[in-house]
């Protein structure tokens, strides 16, 4: 069995989750507190990956990032980035694809906080940024954790988008979910089983850990 697809899967999930964490907080914050009229539009866009077949997203990204196209050639020229059939491309696609899984829990976390908590901080003279980092985020830790884990687990399970934009290049874009498909095609059921089993156990453990932590079952261990 080749470990490379598994390593690649986890590397992709880690990088995607980190990138998502930092871009989702401002998006979720904005969505939770804005009164802007374009909020429904942005909300819809963020939620699209939930309903759209991954191949649709993958197809458009493939077209957009193709060097023959304006965006693709601009990125290639100015940033030296080639986003199709590359690991970077996979990250961009995964970030878009897993966006709702990170944004929604964080947005819900913000919305569920009593509005007076932020107001209390403002009348104490604290800026919005200080309030965000010292008051709001520390009080939505469970939501942040849920977002991180859902995005991580969802990226691990990705197939369609990755296949469309990344192709199936060993060591570069061939992640575990694609490797499983490959092995099944080649009738190597036992290898496919190993990949599947490892993915199953690891995602199960991660999710279990979240529920244990958010449910307060592990509190006594980290006091």
């Amino acid at each position, binding site marked *: 069995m080749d470990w490379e697809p598994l390593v690649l899967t986890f590397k992709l999930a880690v990088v995607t989750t980190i990138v998502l964490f930092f871009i989702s907080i401002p998006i979720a914050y904005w969505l939770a507190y804005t009164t802007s009229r374009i909020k429904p539009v942005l909300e819809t866009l963020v939620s699209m990956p939930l309903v759209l077949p991954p191949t649709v997203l993958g197809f458009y990204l493939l077209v957009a990032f193709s060097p023959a196209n304006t965006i693709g050639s601009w990125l290639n020229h100015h940033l030296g980035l080639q986003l199709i059939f590359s690991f970077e491309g996979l990250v961009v696609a995964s970030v878009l694809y897993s966006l709702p899984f990170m944004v929604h829990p964080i947005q819900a976390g913000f919305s569920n906080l*009593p509005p007076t908590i932020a107001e209390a*901080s403002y009348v104490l003279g604290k800026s919005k940024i200080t309030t965000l980092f010292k008051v709001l985020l520390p009080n939505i830790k469970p939501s942040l954790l849920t977002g991180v884990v859902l995005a991580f687990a969802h990226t691990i399970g990705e197939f369609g988008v990755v296949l469309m934009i990344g192709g199936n290049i060993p060591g570069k874009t061939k992640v575990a979910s694609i490797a499983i498909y490959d092995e099944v095609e080649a009738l190597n059921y036992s290898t496919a089983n190993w990949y599947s089993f490892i993915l199953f156990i690891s995602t199960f453990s991660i999710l279990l850990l979240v529920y244990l932590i958010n449910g307060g079952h592990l509190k006594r261990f980290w006091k």
Partner: protein
Amino acid sequence: MIHIALQKKLIAANGEMLLDIDISIEQGKVVTLYGDSGAGKTSILRMIAGLLQADKGSITIDKHIWLDTDQRICLKPQQRKIGFVFQEYALFPNMTVKENLLFALEKGQDKHIVEELIDIVELGNLQHRKPEYLSGGQKQRVALARAMVRKPKILMLDEPLSALDSKMRAKLQDYILRIHKQYNLTTLLISHEIGEVIKMSDTVYVIDHGRISKQGNPIDVFTTKHISGKFQFSGEIVQIIKEDVIYIVTILIGTNFVKIIAQESEIETMTIGDNVIVASKAFNPLLQKIN
């Protein structure tokens, strides 16, 4: 001197309501906004704090302009330097009692004030607890102390005591008054308890559908007539017992219970929970020195 003139269209339960008030407050006084829920009291406090935008109006605090819609001046809540105690306390759940107070410190401010305030509200032995492990009254004391850390000139309290039982309430009223005096504050509070208004405030504004319907000294505002009795207190009826041809009425005044004799025709108009004025001639009570 504080001058507040505010206008705002509010969406109330029964349609639109125009809030239109004009209030002048002398430095060092305790002023109460009294009225039914939905009359616009909380909106007034929120507009003074800068948490709600007025459609039109001005707020001037000792010649500092906080709001003047004509000149397009509107300071942010952060710039207004007020103490605000929210009805639901709004303590930061991630911080302990002491951390809640420390968070309120301004850059470079002496930390000593935090200990001083914890002492005043007598929370020394609870200072390392998180808010979720505090009772309602304790939370309210933390909220009060936290509001005072920046040493604001104005303290505003939105129905600070409505969720507390009457004993706790009396105790907290004393804390508020103590802090008011010690820090030479101007205090603005919302209350719908007549007894509380009379005990706490120098001036009361009765707010009715967004407008001031009455204002003045609380006793004058709430009692339609003057009584010359010099021995006057307001309290709440807690018990009425018939004895012989008379009734004995127990009244809670502050934290003390007093018993008053009344007769049937008076009792007919009163029930337990009513706020009453207890009045007697100054000629009757005896004074005795306590050793």
